[in-house]
């Protein structure tokens, strides 16, 4: 007798978000990228649809990072401090399909760049490269409330993904994202209850749920990855059972977290790359839709892994 698989019937669906806007729609990106839209848990394709593959974005900075390990510095040292050059290197040399620019230079402790400077940078970046853009603030709430609206305006009509909104500071960014047609990152500190609450608060301001991406906050391999994994899994199970308030794509800053691990920074060629790649692949299994990464070889490995998952 043939074995009959017990298949779960899901009623919910993860929201599908569109990143980037092409010329036909009024933007200037060469492509749009869709995230989410699943009706099943990661890679259980017998139970539902997985219309969009996980995507990888290259992380670039507006200033030269001072705390990146040698292994990363070697790759990017020629473009540190030159965001346009860095962006072009990632797109031309490493075939980046999404760029994530972190505006660290706006932080009061890291250069205190003005909103005008950052807006000009974003405007210029959009002219230099034609891939969809993720824009991250510097992490200082007061300063982000000044620079991010200016950057949203400079990128108006390009349908970027901008973040991060947090529970105590989401109104200014939500208003800017709404006004200029972007998507928003809602960030919570490895806390599913706050993640859900923040999505409600943001949608209360009139932003459609289809324009929100959850940053659940992650830990790297060996540094709390399993907590992030269980949060993401719980949210996805609830999403597929019909809870629309958590049925949104995930963004994970895999590179940032992996390269903080002391094992990744140890003086061993390749270990950091493997640390970043393994952190990312585990997060993909947890349901990550967009991963922000740093090392081109880690990106290559993870892309290969995604290819294999989708071809098998």
């Amino acid at each position, binding site marked *: 007798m043939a074995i009959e698989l017990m298949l779960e019937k899901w009623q919910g669906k993860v929201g599908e978000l569109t990143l980037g806007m092409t010329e036909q729609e009024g933007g200037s990106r060469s492509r749009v990228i869709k995230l989410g839209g699943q009706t099943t848990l990661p890679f259980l394709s017998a139970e539902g649809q997985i219309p969009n593959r996980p995507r990888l974005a290259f992380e670039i900075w507006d200033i030269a990072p001072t705390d990146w390990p040698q292994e990363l510095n070697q790759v990017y040292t020629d473009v540190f401090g030159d965001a346009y050059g860095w962006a072009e290197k990632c797109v031309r040399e490493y075939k980046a399909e999404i760029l994530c620019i972190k505006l660290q230079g706006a932080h009061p402790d890291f250069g205190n760049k003005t909103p005008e400077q950052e807006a000009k940078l974003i405007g210029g970046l959009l002219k230099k490269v034609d891939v969809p853009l993720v824009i991250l603030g510097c992490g200082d709430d007061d300063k982000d409330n000044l620079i991010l609206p200016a950057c949203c305006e400079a990128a108006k009509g390009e349908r970027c993904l901008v973040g991060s909104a947090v529970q105590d500071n989401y109104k200014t960014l939500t208003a800017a994202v709404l006004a200029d047609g972007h998507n928003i990152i809602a960030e919570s500190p490895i806390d599913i*209850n*706050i993640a*859900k*609450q923040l999505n*409600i608060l943001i949608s209360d301001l009139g932003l459609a749920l289809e324009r929100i991406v959850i940053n659940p906050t992650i830990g790297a391999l060996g540094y709390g990855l399993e907590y992030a994994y269980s949060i993401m899994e719980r*949210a996805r199970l609830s999403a597929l059972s019909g*809870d629309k308030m958590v049925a949104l794509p995930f963004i994970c800053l895999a590179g940032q977290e992996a390269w903080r691990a002391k094992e990744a920074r140890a003086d061993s060629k390749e270990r950091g790359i493997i640390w970043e790649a393994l952190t990312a692949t585990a997060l993909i299994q947890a349901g990550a839709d967009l991963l922000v990464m740093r090392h081109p070889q880690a990106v290559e490995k993870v892309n290969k892994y995604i290819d294999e998952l989708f071809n098998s």
Partner: protein
Amino acid sequence: MFVIGELINGMYSSIARAIKEKDKEVIQKCAFDQIAAGADALDVNCGPGSKNPSSDIQWLVEVIQEVTDKTLVLDSSKPQVIDAGLKAMKNKVMINSTTADPQKLAILVPLANQYNAKLIGLAIDAKGIPQNKDQRLELAATIVAACSESGFPVEQLYLDPIVMPVNVGQAQMKDILETIRDFKIISEPQPKTVIGLSNVSQGTLFRSLINRTFLVMAVAYGLDAAILDPTDKELMDSLITAELILNKQIYCDSYLDAYRRK
């Protein structure tokens, strides 16, 4: 919880009048109010005063379908009225209800199959309301067996243990709650469970309080669906909170609001 709004029922004078005068705005507003309050489906019952229930239920179905695509629950003890209602259906549909009587099962189970409808099965037969848990389970098993034999999917069957008014059948309340849990062991795949909630408080002084207390207890026993008044805000809040405590939705400070936006 699958919430079925009970208010479109001809036993309410405003609905009876609207049916008689074919005042569709009253019906549509009643449908809209219940959905806004969190109903997943709407019960449709012409009431005892209807002279021509077959055409009345068709009219009700048509005017409600103009304003919503939610499931409609055709509520009549007469199979020919259900049949008439089914002919007018475009939305998803649930039949309310069959009993364990063979002649009713013979008509309504095939109809449910034909229209891809969910089916409510009452644990009752021509002999009357069962008096204990064993009788309820026996009647339910009869209904499950009839469904299985006709190829009707048992997971689309909603068994109703028959809720008695607390001031009539006080000694049976615990049995009724346990029956909700035990219906699940009748078959695999499991049947679902439903109650007509408001009956529990018939003739009592504190109707709303009794309704919501019983509902919370029934939810704890695994109830899947209830026919109730969704515009009773405290009732719905209690239901949502009961489901929260059973880990059926993720907590957040706005969990009541989140549920209503589902």
